[in-house]
């Protein structure tokens, strides 16, 4: 059985973590801790604003200004996409692909199955994140940055759900080529 070839991370763990941590501290100094998932609800609200404006007016959540008027967080997500694109181009990591190596190794090369899982997974990610009032950025990383009580149950259930699912979906764990060794 051949090994699983993954790409080496561009930075070693310590430099990578310090860089991300510096962005978080800058975010806290400038406006508020990092968060990403709220803007998907903002995007949904923009769609409904066109399709059913009276529904938005009467809605207990998305009638709020925070959802109706794209602001700081909206621009953060746009910056995130542009920053990722710029970095990938700069270090020649931009590459069109359809599935992670782990997926192909465990679930085969059929792209329909991966895309179906990707759509369903994305659906659960956002639904769950908004029920929890935050995702891996807003609730987990920023939760611990501020020592929010809510970060405790979120961390426990997020990683329990993720590890059990990964165990079921990616059962075969071959030797990995491309790990970052220090």
């Amino acid at each position, binding site marked *: 059985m051949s090994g699983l070839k993954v790409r080496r991370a561009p930075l070693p763990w310590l430099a990578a973590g310090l860089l991300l941590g510096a962005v978080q501290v800058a975010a806290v100094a400038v406006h508020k801790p990092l968060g990403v998932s709220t803007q998907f609800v903002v995007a949904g609200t923009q769609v409904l604003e066109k399709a059913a404006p009276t529904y938005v007016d009467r809605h207990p959540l998305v009638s709020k200004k925070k959802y109706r008027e794209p602001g700081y967080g909206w621009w953060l997500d746009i910056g995130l996409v542009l920053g990722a694109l710029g970095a*990938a181009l700069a270090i020649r990591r931009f590459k069109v692909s359809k599935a992670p190596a782990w997926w192909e190794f465990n679930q085969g090369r059929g792209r329909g199955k991966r895309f179906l899982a990707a759509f369903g997974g994305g659906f659960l990610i956002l639904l769950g994140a908004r029920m929890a009032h935050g995702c891996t950025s807003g609730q987990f990383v920023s939760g611990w940055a501020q020592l*929010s009580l809510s970060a405790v149950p979120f961390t426990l259930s997020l990683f329990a759900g993720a590890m059990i699912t990964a165990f079921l979906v990616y059962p075969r764990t071959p030797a990995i080529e491309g790990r970052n060794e220090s």
Partner: protein
Amino acid sequence: MSPHWTGLIVGLFFGLSLVLSGLADPDKIIGTLRLKDLHALRTIAVFVLTGMAGTWILTLFGAAHFSIKPAFMVSVLIGGGIMGIGFGLTGYCPGTGLACAATGRLDALVTILGMLAGALVFIFLYPGLAAPLQKVWALGKVTLPEATGIPYAAWVLGLGGAGSFLLWATRKKGN
């Protein structure tokens, strides 16, 4: 309120860092969830601890902007578990999904479409389901120092120690 362009700048650096760190790579995330490639785990640990220590230092200068989430425990637990299923299945979260789509991963683009569908369904379910659930065991916008009476600095030092131990204990398993 900060002007919107500050969001754009913070976002640019966040997206760049997600790519350079390797977190915007589902293989790294899945490798960590399967405990076979701990680069992402160690990176995330340093990310969290640096953010925590840096935020604490900012509070000493009165320069931190907090945004504490309300601790409705049941909804957070259920939501976290549902999100975890999607996270483990795809290897993406909202931030890295956006970053990965920007680096050419088509399955990440499909994940984003799924997230938009999830957001719409959340909006539809909110009045009847999500809002009532968020009233169960709701403890308010509380921090751990407030909830426990243990001082802020002690929490930062204690969690810093626990995180350092985690980094030490995982030192040999793929960095």
